[in-house]
């Protein structure tokens, strides 16, 4: 593992003092602690904001409006806002989309539950990763 010397500005003095004290007690260097802390930090998820999607923006504003009105269910945003529909269930949303698609073809539909946006994490195994052999 190659190592590099770097200079950091803006380190909290109290934190640094405590780290240095503990490093002495543990018999390790401050850089070892910093490396360990940085490795741990890298394990945490990073959520990068994506490019603005007109459909999502419309869905967000509709959800906000319907939540204020006390409405529940699902909304559909078709072709980046060309049309939007309100449904009571996901099954009804699919049924409405199917009927509409038979009459007029569209290319994109976004289905959104009327509730505040939340983030979900799913554990994926290693099957997506391929180990290159014979390197």
């Amino acid at each position, binding site marked *: 593992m190659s190592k590099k010397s770097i200079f950091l500005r803006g380190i909290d003095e109290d934190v640094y003092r405590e780290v240095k004290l503990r490093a002495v007690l543990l018999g390790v260097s401050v850089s070892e602690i910093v490396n360990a802390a940085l490795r741990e930090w890298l394990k945490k998820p990073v959520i990068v904001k994506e490019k603005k999607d007109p459909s999502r923006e419309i869905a967000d504003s509709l959800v906000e409006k319907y939540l204020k009105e006390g409405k529940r269910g699902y909304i559909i945003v078709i072709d980046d806002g060309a049309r939007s529909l309100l449904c009571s269930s996901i099954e009804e949303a699919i049924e409405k989309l199917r009927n509409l698609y038979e009459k007029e073809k569209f290319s994109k539909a976004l*289905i959104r539950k009327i509730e505040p946006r939340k983030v979900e994490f*799913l554990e994926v195994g290693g099957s997506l*990763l391929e180990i290159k052999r014979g390197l």
Partner: protein
Amino acid sequence: MKLREAYNTSLHTAFPRIRAKLINPVSREFVETDLYIDTGFEGTIILTNNVRENLKLDLTILDEDVYAFHAGYFPSRIIPVIVILEINKVYRRMIKAYIHPFSKRNLVGREVINNLNMCLRGPEKMLEIF
């Protein structure tokens, strides 16, 4: 009724797979594809961008923020879509599937596998579904 599926032996380590039919519930179009067994994936199925395009899955996107963890690291955004999954005569349900931007193969995870009686006959490179 017993369904027998041969492993994919073209990979360095043979990989158990199921032949499945994926149906777009809006356009009613369908594709038949292999789903590789992934007990490490806690969701339903992961689909490639190719399937997304061929099956026109942009018609059934769910506006949810879902991120995939790969063995605890490298989270990446995956896109939930509604699809009908049919595995022979054994399983047919409308499910929430996920499009993974970097996946090269389609995977089936525990949320589906846990509904099936499966037997992995490793030495014979054969998967059986009862």
